[in-house]
C-alpha cells in the first residue's frame, strides 16, 4: 500500500493542505524545526489507525490554524485498488470514512484488510517512528513485535524455558554452591567433617588400647615384684613368729623334764586297774542284789499257785455253754413270737365270728367254704345286671317313642283342623272378592261412558254456562261421602261407614239436582247440554251405585280403575292362597297316616322289650339258686354278700397262718430248753423247774469265763517259776567268776587287798600326770616348730644367742609393719590394674566407632544421593544452555535474520548478527568474535542502528506476508556517523524498493545523502503550513 495523496482539513498547524501525486518508493520531506514534520507523521498515523485517546496524553494535533480536525489519505493497494480514507476526531479513534475512488463507500473492513492486522501500536513503533521511539528498546517489546522477534518457531518448549532454567538453577544451588553454607551438599560436607573429627577422636582413644597394654604390663611386673617381696617377708615373719612362740614352751619343757627325773613311783600299774576294781566291786554288788530279788519272786509265785485251785468242770461244757449263750437272744425272740402268733390267731377267730354274723343267720364256716370262688360270682352278677339294664332300657325307649309319636300325631291333627277352617274362610273371601270385582267393573264402565260425555259437553262449552252449582260440588260431596265410608269401613264396620257415605251422597245428589234446575232455562245448546248433563248424571249415579255395591262409596269415580285393579289383584291372591291351603291339608293328612303307623310299631317294640326284661329276671333267679345264694337277692345286693364271704375266708386263712407260726416257735423254745437241761445234767447240777433259762445260761457263762482265767494264770506262773530258777543259776555262776577276776587283778598289781591296790595306784598316777605334761609341752613345741624335731628346736633357739621373749616379739612387730606396707602397695596397684582393665574392656566393647562409621557412611550416602541429584540438574541445565545457544544461532526467527542483515549493512560488518535470546524479550548483538552484547553495552548510535535494523527486519517480514505498509521515519539518522548514515541510507533505499518510505528530515545534508545514492529521489518541502514538491539541487523551504 502506498499513499498517493493527502488532504489535511485541520491538523496542528496545517489547514486545508493537499498533497497529490506522491510517488511509490522513497519520498524525502525536508522541513525546518517546527515546520510540521512530526505533524505529518502524526496525521498519517491518525488517519490510518485513529486519533490517540485523549487520556493517553499523546498529541492529538488539534487544528491550530482552523479547519475541521482531521483529513483524508488517498491510498493505493499493491493490486492497484484506490481508496480514500477520511478520519475526523471522535470516540474510539475517531469517525472513519472509507470510500472507493469513485466516491462510493467501501467500509472500514477494506482498510483493515489493507493494514493486514497491524495495530496502531505496532504501526507507531515499527512503521511510523521518530527518534524518540527509535531510542527505546521498550518500543520493540510490545506483544506483537516480541511475538515475531523473540519466540517464533521455538515451539512450546521456549515458553517454559525460562521457568525451567530458573527451576534448575534453584535446584542446583539448593544442593550445592561454591562457598555456600546452606545448600545440602555444603551442609553434608560440614557434617562429614564433623563426624570424621569425632571418628578421629574415637580412634585415638582406641589407639590408647595398645598403650593401656603396656601400662598394664608394667603394673603386672611391679605386682610380681611385690608378690616376691611379700613372700620373703612372710617367710621371715613366720620364722620370727615361730621363734617367739617356741621360746616359752621350750623353757617349760626343760623344767618339766627335770621334775620328772626326780619322782619315785612304780612305773607300771595294771591297765585301768582302779576302774577294773571298781567295776568288779559294782558287779558283785549287783549280782548279790539280783539273787535276793529272784528268791523273793519265786516265793511269791508259789504262793499264788496255791491260791488258784477251783471247780473247772465247766470247761468241759464250754461248747454247750457257748451255744446256749449265742442262741439266748434267739430263744427269747422265739418265745415272744410264739405268744404273739397265738394272740393274733385269736384275734382272727374273733373277726371271723363277726363277719359270719354280718352275713346273717345260716352262715357258718362250712357254708362259707361251700361257696365257690367269689370272682366268677361277681362276673355273673355283673353280666346279669347288664342284661337286665339293657332290657329295661330297651323297654323304656320303646314306650317313650310311642308316647312321642302320639303327641306328634295330636299336633298334626290340630294343624289339619286349622287348615280346614282356613280353607272355609278363604272360600268366603273368594266369593266376596269376585262380587266386588263385578261391581267395580260395572262402575268402571260407567265412568268410561261419563268420560265420553264430558268430552262432548266440553265441546259445547263455548256458551257461557249459567251460574249454577258447579258440577264438581255434588261430585265432591259424593266423593267425600265415599271417602268417609272408606275411612270408616275398616274400623266402624260396613254399616256405619255406609250410612255416613250414603248421607253425603244424598247431599250431593240434592246439590246436583238444584244445579240442574237452574240450568233448565238455557238455549238449545243449553238443552243439549242439559241432555248431556242428564246422561252424565245417569252415569254418575250408576257408577256411584256400583261403587256403593262394591262398598267403595267414598272412593269416587276417579279411582275406579285403580280400585278395580286392586280388587282383581286381591281376587287372584285369595285364589292362590286357597290352592296353597289345599296342598297344606293334603300334606298334613299324609303325615298323620305315617305317624299312626309308626306309633303302632313303637307300641309293639315296647311289648317285646317287656318280654326280654322278664326273661332276664328269670335267668337271675336261676343263677342265685345255682350259686347257693338266697333267692331274694337283687344283683345290687350280691357284691356285699360276696365281700362278706371274702372277709370270712381271709380271717380263716389268717387264723390258720398264726396257728402254724405259734407251733413252729414253740418247737424252737423246746429245743433250747432241752439243750440247757442236757448241759446242767452233764455238770451234775439239778435242772430247776420254772427257772428262767436265760438267767441260768448267764450264770453258766460267767462261771466258764472265770474257770478259763484261772487256767491261763496258772500256766503263766508255772512258766515264770521255771525262768526264775534258770536265772538264779546264772547269777550264782557270775558271782564266782567276779571273785576269780578280782583275785587276778590284785595279783597283777602285786597288792594283797583292794585298798593296797588303790594306794599303789595313787603314787603311779602322780608320776604319769607329770610325764603327760612333759609330752604336752613337747608336742606344743613340735607343733610350733612345724617339722623340726626337739633337738632341732633346741639347736635353733640356741643359735639365736642371748635373747629373751621381748626381743623376739619386737622383731615380729617390725616384720609385720613391713608386710603391711607391701600389702598396701599391692592393693593400690591391683586397683590401678582393675581400672585399666575396665577401661580396656570398655574400649574393646565400645561400638562408638562403629556407629560413627555408620554415620559417616550415611552422610557419604546422602552426599552421593545429593550429588547424583545435583549432577542430574546440572546436566539438565547444561543441556538447556547448549540447546538454547544452538537454537539461538541456528534457528533464529526470520525477522531477526533480516534484521541482522540490515545491521551488517549499517555497521559494515562490525556486528555480525543479532540474537533474540529464547524466552526473554531482549536482543543482543553478536560480534564477529562470537561475543554477545546487550543493547546497554552498545554506543547510542549503534543501539539505534540495532533497533532500526530490527524494525527494518520486521517491516520486511511483514511485507512478505501481506500488504506492505507505508513507512514513515522522522530524522532517525541524526546519531549515525557519516559512514553508517550512508550505509543506512542504502538500507532505506533498499527498503523503499518494496515499501513507500516517507523520510522526514530537517537536515539538508540528509537529503544530500539520499541524493548522493539516488539522485532522483523525490523531495518535498514541509513548511509555511504546506507541503510541496521541492525543486532545484537543494530543496528550499518555499518552492
Amino acid at each position, binding site marked *: 500500500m502506498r499513499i498517493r495523496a493527502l488532504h489535511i482539513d485541520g491538523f496542528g498547524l496545517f489547514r486545508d493542505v493537499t498533497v497529490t501525486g506522491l510517488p511509490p518508493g522513497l519520498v524525502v520531506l525536508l522541513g525546518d524545526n517546527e515546520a510540521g514534520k512530526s505533524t505529518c507523521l502524526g496525521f498519517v498515523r491518525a488517519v490510518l489507525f485513529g486519533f490517540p485517546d485523549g487520556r493517553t496524553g499523546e498529541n492529538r494535533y488539534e487544528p491550530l490554524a482552523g479547519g475541521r480536525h482531521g483529513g483524508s489519505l488517498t491510498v493505493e493497494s499493491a493490486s492497484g485498488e484506490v481508496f480514500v480514507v477520511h478520519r475526523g476526531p471522535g470516540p474510539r479513534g475517531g469517525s472513519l470514512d472509507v470510500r472507493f475512488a469513485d466516491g462510493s463507500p467501501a467500509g472500514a473492513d477494506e482498510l483493515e484488510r489493507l493494514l493486514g492486522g497491524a495495530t496502531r501500536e505496532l504501526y507507531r513503533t515499527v512503521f511510523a517512528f521518530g527518534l524518540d521511539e527509535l531510542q527505546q528498546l521498550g518500543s520493540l517489546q510490545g506483544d506483537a513485535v516480541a511475538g515475531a522477534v523473540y519466540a517464533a518457531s521455538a515451539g512450546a518448549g521456549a515458553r*517454559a524455558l525460562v521457568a525451567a532454567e530458573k527451576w534448575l538453577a534453584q535446584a542446583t544451588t539448593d544442593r550445592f554452591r561454591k562457598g555456600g553454607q546452606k545448600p545440602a551438599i555444603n551442609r553434608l560436607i560440614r557434617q562429614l*567433617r564433623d563426624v570424621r573429627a569425632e571418628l578421629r577422636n574415637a580412634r585415638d582413644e582406641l589407639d590408647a588400647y*595398645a598403650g593401656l597394654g603396656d601400662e598394664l604390663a608394667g603394673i603386672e611386673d611391679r605386682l610380681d615384684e611385690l608378690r616376691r617381696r611379700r613372700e620373703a617377708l612372710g617367710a621371715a615373719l613366720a620364722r620370727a613368729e615361730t621363734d617367739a612362740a617356741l621360746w616359752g614352751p621350750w623353757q617349760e619343757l626343760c623344767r618339766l623334764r627335770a621334775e620328772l627325773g626326780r619322782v619315785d613311783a612304780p612305773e607300771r600299774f595294771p591297765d585301768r586297774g582302779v576302774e577294773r576294781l571298781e567295776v568288779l566291786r559294782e558287779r558283785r554288788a549287783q549280782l548279790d542284789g539280783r539273787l535276793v530279788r529272784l528268791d523273793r519272786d519265786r516265793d511269791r509265785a508259789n504262793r499264788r499257785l496255791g491260791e488258784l485251785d477251783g471247780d473247772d468242770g465247766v470247761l468241759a461244757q464250754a461248747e454247750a455253754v457257748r451255744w446256749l449263750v449265742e442262741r439266748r437272744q434267739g430263744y427269747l425272740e422265739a418265745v415272744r413270737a410264739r405268744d404273739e402268733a397265738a394272740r393274733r390267731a385269736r384275734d382272727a377267730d374273733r373277726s371271723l365270728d363277726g363277719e359270719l354274723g354280718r352275713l346273717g343267720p345260716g352262715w357258718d364256716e362250712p357254708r362259707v367254704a361251700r361257696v365257690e370262688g367269689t370272682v366268677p360270682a361277681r362276673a355273673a352278677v355283673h353280666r346279669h345286671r347288664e342284661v337286665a339294664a339293657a332290657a329295661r332300657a330297651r323297654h323304656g325307649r320303646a314306650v317313650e317313642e310311642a308316647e312321642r309319636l302320639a303327641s306328634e300325631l295330636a299336633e298334626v291333627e290340630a294343624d289339619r283342623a286349622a287348615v280346614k277352617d282356613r280353607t272355609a274362610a278363604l272360600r268366603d273371601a273368594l266369593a266376596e272378592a269376585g262380587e266386588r270385582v263385578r261391581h267395580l267393573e260395572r262402575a268402571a264402565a260407567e265412568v268410561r261412558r261419563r268420560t265420553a260425555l264430558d268430552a262432548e259437553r266440553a265441546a259445547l262449552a263455548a256458551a257461557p254456562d249459567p251460574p249454577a252449582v258447579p258440577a264438581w260440588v255434588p261430585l265432591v260431596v259424593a266423593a267425600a261421602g265415599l271417602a268417609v265410608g272408606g275411612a270408616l269401613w275398616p274400623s266402624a264396620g260396613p254399616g256405619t261407614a255406609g250410612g255416613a257415605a250414603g248421607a253425603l251422597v244424598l247431599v250431593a245428589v240434592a246439590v246436583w239436582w238444584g244445579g240442574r234446575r237452574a240450568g233448565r232455562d238455557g238455549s238449545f245448546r243449553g238443552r243439549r247440554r242439559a241432555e248431556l248433563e242428564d246422561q252424565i248424571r245417569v252415569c254418575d249415579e250408576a257408577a256411584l251405585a256400583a261403587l256403593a255395591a262394591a262398598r267403595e262409596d267414598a272412593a269416587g269415580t276417579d279411582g275406579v280403575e285403580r280400585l278395580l285393579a286392586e280388587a282383581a289383584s286381591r281376587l287372584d291372591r285369595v285364589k292362590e292362597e286357597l290352592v296353597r291351603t289345599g296342598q297344606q291339608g293334603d300334606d298334613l293328612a299324609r303325615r298323620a297316616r305315617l305317624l299312626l303307623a309308626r306309633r303302632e310299631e313303637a307300641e309293639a317294640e315296647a311289648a317285646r322289650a317287656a318280654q326280654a326284661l322278664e326273661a332276664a329276671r328269670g335267668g337271675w333267679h336261676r343263677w342265685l339258686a345255682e350259686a347257693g345264694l338266697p333267692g331274694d337277692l337283687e344283683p345290687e345286693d350280691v357284691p356285699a354278700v360276696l365281700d362278706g364271704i371274702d372277709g370270712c375266708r381271709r380271717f380263716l386263712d389268717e387264723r390258720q397262718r398264726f396257728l402254724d407260726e405259734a407251733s413252729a416257735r414253740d418247737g424252737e423254745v423246746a429245743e433250747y430248753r432241752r439243750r440247757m437241761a442236757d448241759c446242767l445234767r452233764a455238770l451234775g447240777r439239778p435242772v430247776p423247774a420254772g427257772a428262767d433259762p436265760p438267767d441260768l445260761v448267764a450264770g453258766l457263762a460267767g462261771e466258764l469265763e472265770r474257770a478259763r482265767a484261772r487256767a491261763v494264770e496258772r500256766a503263766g506262773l508255772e512258766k515264770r517259776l521255771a525262768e526264775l530258777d534258770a536265772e538264779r543259776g546264772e547269777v550264782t555262776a557270775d558271782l564266782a567268776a567276779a571273785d576269780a577276776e578280782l583275785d587276778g587283778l590284785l595279783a597283777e598289781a602285786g597288792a594283797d587287798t583292794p585298798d593296797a591296790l588303790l594306794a599303789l595306784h595313787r603314787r603311779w598316777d602322780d608320776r604319769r600326770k607329770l610325764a603327760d605334761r612333759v609330752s604336752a609341752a613337747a608336742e606344743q613345741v613340735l607343733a610350733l616348730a612345724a617339722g623340726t624335731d626337739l633337738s632341732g628346736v633346741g639347736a635353733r633357739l640356741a643359735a639365736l644367742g642371748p635373747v629373751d621373749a621381748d626381743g623376739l616379739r619386737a622383731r615380729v612387730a617390725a616384720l609385720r609393719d613391713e608386710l603391711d606396707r607391701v600389702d598396701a602397695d599391692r592393693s593400690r596397684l591391683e586397683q590401678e590394674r582393675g581400672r585399666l582393665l575396665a577401661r580396656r574392656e570398655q574400649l574393646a566393647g565400645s561400638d562408638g566407632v562403629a556407629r560413627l562409621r*555408620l554415620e559417616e*557412611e550415611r552422610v557419604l550416602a546422602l552426599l552421593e544421593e545429593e550429588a*547424583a541429584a545435583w549432577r542430574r540438574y546440572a546436566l539438565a541445565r547444561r543441556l538447556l544452555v547448549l540447546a538454547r545457544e544452538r537454537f539461538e544461532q541456528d534457528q533464529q526467527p526470520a525477522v531477526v535474520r533480516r534484521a541482522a542483515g540490515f545491521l551488517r549493512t549499517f555497521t559494515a560488518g562490525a556486528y555480525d548478527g543479532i540474537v533474540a535470546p529464547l524466552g526473554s524479550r531482549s536482543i543482543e548483538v553478536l560480534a564477529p568474535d562470537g561475543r554477545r552484547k546487550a543493547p546497554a553495552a552498545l554506543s547510542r548510535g549503534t543501539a539505534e542502528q540495532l533497533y532500526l535494523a530490527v524494525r527494518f527486519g520486521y517491516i520486511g517480514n511483514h511485507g512478505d506476508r501481506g500488504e506492505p505498509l507505508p513507512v514513515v521515519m522522522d530524522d532517525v539518522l541524526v546519531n549515525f556517523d557519516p559512514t553508517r548514515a550512508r550505509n543506512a541510507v542504502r538500507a532505506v533505499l533498499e527498503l523503499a524498493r518494496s515499501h513507500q518510505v516517507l523520510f522526514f528530515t530537517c537536515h539538508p545534508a540528509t537529503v544530500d545523502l539520499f541524493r548522493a545514492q539516488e539522485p532522483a529521489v523525490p523531495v518535498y518541502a514541509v513548511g509555511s503550513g504546506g507541503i510541496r514538491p521541492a525543486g532545484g539541487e537543494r530543496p528550499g523551504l518555499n518552492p
Partner: protein
Amino acid sequence: MTAFTFFHAADLHLDTPFRGLTAVADAHPEVVRAVTTATFDAFDRLVADAVRERPAFVVIAGDVFDSAERSVRAQLRFRDGLARMAAAGVPSYVVHGNHDPAEGGPAVAWPAGVHVFGWEDAEAVSVVRDGEPLAVLAGVSHRRRAESRRLHRKLAPPAGPRGVLRVAVLHCNVGSDTGHEPYAPCELADLVGAGFDYWALGHVHERAVLHEDPWVVYPGNFQGRSIREAGPRGYVRVSVAGGRPVSVAFSATDAVRWMRQAVDVAGLPTIDAVDRAVADAVDRAAAAADGRPAIVRVELRGRGPVAADLARPEALADLTERARDAGAALEPFVWVERLVSACRPEVDLDARRRALDLLGQVLRVAQDLRSDPDALAAAWAELHDHPALRRDLAVPRREDAVAVLAEAELLCVELLERDG
C-alpha cells in the same frame, strides 16, 4: 584315608559399616542394631556351625577386619570365636589380607589352636586328627596394605605322605578384572599348575569357583555391606575324600541380606498403584530373605504414565518413606535402602529428537553429549573439583554418566512440557 570336611571363609571385615544407608537413624533402633552388629552376627554363625559340626579345620583367607578401623572389639570377637572353635577341637588357619596386613597387626594374642601364617616366607603346617595326618596347609600373609609381591610364588606344596590334602591359603587377586584392588596379583594358570589340591582364596567378595581339580575358590565375603553386595553371603564347606576335595557347598552366614527388587511401572496408572506395587516388592523381599532382616533397593522400571510423576524428586521421596515405614514394621524388618526410578515416559523420544523445536534441540544436544564424556565431566567439574569432595565423590563412570544423562534428558522433557 578318612573322609572329612573343612570350612573355607574369607573377607569377614568385622565391625565395618554398611554403605549407602541414608536414613537409618534412631527412629529405627532395631535396624541400627542389626546393621552395626551384622558382621559379628555373621561370624558367630560360622563359629556356631563349626562348634556344632566339628569340621577338621577352618581356613580364613584374609581381611578379617579393617586395620584402619582399629576396632578392638572386632579383634576380640574374632579371637573369642577362634577360641570357641579351638575349645571344640576345631583348629583354624588364618592369613592376613590387604585390609588387615601383618604389619601393625592385631593388639590381641591368638589363642591356642589358631595358626596365623607369617608374611616373610610361606609356612606349612600339618593337620593331624587322632594321629592321622589329614592335610598340609601352606599360606603366606600380606605384609602391608598395598601388597604388590606375587605371594603365590612363595607357596609350594610341601612334601608329605600320599593321600594327604594339600591346601594353599592366600589373599590375592586372580586375573586383572575383578573389580578389586590388584594386590598380590596372580593368574589362574599359576595357581592351577602349582601342585595344590585346593586354593583357599580371599579378596574378591563375589563367590566364585575359578577351577575344579585343583579347586580354586573364592568363598565371597561373609556379610553384604552395600547394594553392590546383594544376595546370600557366607562360607564354603569342602568335603574331602581320599585326600582330594569332592564337593564345595555354600553356607549362608549373612545376618542382614542385601537385595534388589524391580517394579515394572508399565500398566500402573497412578502413583497410588506404584505405592502398592512397591509394598508388594517389600513383601517379596521379606519372603526371599530366608527369615533374616533384609535391606532392599527397589528399582522402578519400564514405560508408563507415572514416569513423569516419578521424575519429581518429592514423589520418590514420599514413596520411599512409605515403603520404609511398611518394611520397618515387618518382623524381621525389611529396610528400603533406596527407591530408584529408571522408568521412561510414554513419549517417543526419538520422534521428539527429530523435531525442529527447542525440545528437539535439547534432545539432540543430549545425544551429542552421549559420545562426549569430557563435556559431561565439564558439566560436573564445579562439584567434583571442590577440594572437600575430591576424595569422597567419585567422578561417575562412563555408563553411570550416561544414565545420569538419560535422567537429565527426561527431566528436561518434563520441565519444558510442564505448561506447554
